[in-house]
C-alpha cells in the first residue's frame, strides 16, 4: 500500500467526518430510515389490524378477514363494557399497578441504601441475596405461594398479585439502585448528619431526590411489566374476581367464541395506558434507559 493511497483515504475519511459535522442528509441515511419505517409497519401490523377490526361486526370479520370497516361500529366498545365486567378488570389492573409501584418506591430505595451503606460483609451478602431473586422465576415458587395464600385467606385477592409483584421486583430494583448509589458521595450525608439530621431525614431529603433518574427508569419499566402481566394474575386470581384486563380477555376468548370484535376492542383499550405512560415519560425512557448510561 503506497503512501498516496493512504493519504487519499485519510482525506476521504476527513471529508466524511466533515459531512457528519454538518449532518447533511445522505442517501445511506435515507435507506436506513426507510428500512426502519418498513420494519415498524411489519411488526406493528397485528395492532393496526386489531384496531381496524375492533370497529367491524363479527359477520364482516369472518366474511372478509382483510376488509376495512365500512361503517365504524363504535358501539363495539360500549358493548365491551356493558356485556362484560371489563370496567372491573380495568380498575383491578390499575389498582394492582399503582399500589405495587407506590409501595416499591417507598421500601426499595431505602433497602438499596441500607444494603449499600451497611458496610462490611453484610453489604455483599445482602446484595447477592437480593440478586439471587433474578434467577428464581415465578414458576419455580408459584405452587407453594398459592398454598400459602390459600392458608392465610388472600388467594384470589388483588393483594396476592401485589405481594408477588413486590417480591419479584426486588432483585432488579436492588441491582439498579445499588449501582447508582455507588456513585453518590457519602460526604454529603456526613455534612447533613453534622447538622443533626437523622438518617431517615437525610435519606428522604438528600439522597432520594438524587436517585430520581433511577426511580423514573424503575417506575417506567415496572409500570409496564405490572400492567402487561398475564401469568401472575392468571394463577393468583380465581373466578370470584373480575381479574385483570389480560385475564378478562383470556376468559372472553373462551366464552365469547363468536364476538371477535369485542376481543379486539379489549386488546386496543389495554394499550392506551401503556401509550400514556410512554408518552408522559418518553424523555426519561430514552434518556434513562439508553443514553443515560453514556451521557448522563
Amino acid at each position, binding site marked *: 500500500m503506497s503512501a498516496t493511497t493512504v493519504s487519499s483515504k485519510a482525506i476521504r*475519511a476527513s471529508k466524511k467526518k466533515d459531512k457528519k459535522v454538518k449532518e447533511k442528509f445522505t442517501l445511506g441515511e435515507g435507506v436506513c430510515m426507510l428500512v426502519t419505517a418498513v420494519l*415498524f409497519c411489519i411488526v406493528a401490523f*397485528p395492532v393496526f*389490524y386489531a384496531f381496524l377490526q375492533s370497529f367491524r361486526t363479527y359477520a364482516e370479520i369472518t366474511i372478509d378477514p382483510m376488509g376495512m370497516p365500512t361503517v365504524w361500529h363504535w358501539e363495539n366498545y360500549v358493548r365491551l363494557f356493558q356485556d362484560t365486567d371489563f370496567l372491573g378488570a380495568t380498575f383491578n389492573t390499575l389498582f394492582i399497578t399503582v399500589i405495587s409501584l407506590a409501595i416499591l418506591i417507598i421500601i426499595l430505595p431505602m*433497602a438499596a441504601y441500607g444494603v449499600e451503606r451497611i458496610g462490611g460483609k453484610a453489604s455483599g451478602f445482602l446484595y447477592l441475596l437480593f440478586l439471587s431473586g433474578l434467577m428464581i*422465576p415465578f414458576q419455580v415458587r408459584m405452587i407453594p405461594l398459592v398454598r400459602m395464600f390459600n392458608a392465610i385467606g388472600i388467594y384470589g385477592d388483588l393483594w396476592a398479585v401485589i405481594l408477588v409483584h413486590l417480591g419479584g421486583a426486588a432483585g432488579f430494583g436492588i441491582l439498579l439502585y445499588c449501582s447508582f448509589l455507588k456513585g453518590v458521595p457519602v460526604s454529603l450525608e456526613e455534612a447533613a448528619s453534622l447538622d443533626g439530621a437523622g438518617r431517615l431525614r437525610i435519606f428522604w431529603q438528600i439522597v432520594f431526590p438524587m436517585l430520581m433518574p433511577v426511580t423514573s427508569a424503575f417506575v417506567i419499566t415496572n409500570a409496564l411489566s405490572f400492567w402487561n402481566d398475564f401469568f401472575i394474575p392468571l394463577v393468583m386470581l380465581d373466578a370470584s374476581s373480575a381479574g385483570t384486563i*389480560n385475564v378478562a380477555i383470556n376468559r372472553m376468548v373462551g366464552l365469547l367464541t363468536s364476538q371477535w370484535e369485542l376481543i379486539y376492542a379489549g386488546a386496543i383499550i389495554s394499550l392506551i395506558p401503556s401509550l400514556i405512560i410512554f408518552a408522559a415519560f418518553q424523555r426519561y425512557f430514552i434518556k434513562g434507559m439508553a443514553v443515560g448510561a453514556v451521557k448522563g
Partner: protein
Amino acid sequence: MATVRRGTSGASHNAIHAQARRNKLMMFLFTLPMLVLFLWIVIFPSLQSIQLSFTNYDGISAKYDYVGLRNYQEIIGSGRFWNSTKNTLILGIGSAFIINVISLAVALLLDHIKHFAGFFRTIVYLPSLVSAFIVSTIWKYMLNSNFGAVNEILTKMGLDSLAHDWLGDSKHIIWVLLFLICFTLGGNTTLIYLSNLQSVPQELVEAAEVDGANGLQVFRHVTWPMLAGSVTVNFTLALIGGWVIFDQVMVLTGGGPGFVSETMAFFIYRLGFGEYRAGFGSAAAVILFIVVMITTLITNKYMRSREIQQ
C-alpha cells in the same frame, strides 16, 4: 499520663464503635421491610418447592405424604417432560439469539440516522409496549384457519398451498411459536445496543477507515468488541426470559396439539393447577430452577471472560 491518654482514646474509640454499630443497625432497619417481603415471597416458597417435590401434594388438600424420589424418577422417564424441555431450549435459546441479532441490526440502522433520530427511536420502541399476551391473542385470530387474516392474504397472493391450520399443525407448531416470539424489534434490547454503539469513540472508527478497513471489517474488529458488555447484559436477560416462556403457549396453543408445544413453565402450570399433581409439578419446578441458575451463571461467566479478552 500515658495511662490517662490511653484511657480517653479508648473511650472515644468505644464511642466511635457504638456509633458504627448504631449506624449498622439503622441501615439494617432500612433494608428490613424489603428483606422480609423478599424472604417471604421469593426465598421461602422456593425452598418449599424443594420440600413439596418429595411429596404427592395435589395442590388442594392440606395433607400430603412424602414419596421420596419418586417424582424425580417419574420425571426422568416422562417423554412429556423431555419434550417440554426440548421446546424450552428451542424457544429460549432460539429467541434469545434471534431477538439479539434483530435488535443489534435495528440499533445499527438507528445509529446511522442523524435526522429525526428521536422519532425513529420512538417507533422502534413502540411495539414493545404491547404485551406478549395481547399480541399473541391478536395472532391467534389472525392465524385462525377458517377466518384468519394470514390464510386470507396467502390465498389472495395465490399461495393457497401454504395456507393451513397454523396452530393445529403439530409438526411445525414449535417453529410457528418461535417465529411469533421473535416477531419484534426488541425495544429495550435495541436501546441498550444503541446507547453502547453511540459510546464507541468515533476516532477509533475513523482510524480503522484510514487504515483501509471496509464497513464489515470496522464492525468486526472495532465495533463488535466494544459491544461485549451490552451483549452480555442483553443475552443473559433474554435467556432468563426465554426459559419461562408461557404467555404465547398458553394463548396460542394451550400446549397443544396434545402436549406437543408445552414449555417447562407451561408444564409446571398444568401439573400444578390443571392436573392436581402439584408435588410432581414442584419437582419440575426445581429442575427448571437448576436449569435457569446454571445457564445464567455459565453464560454470564463466559461472556464476561469474553469482555476482558477483547
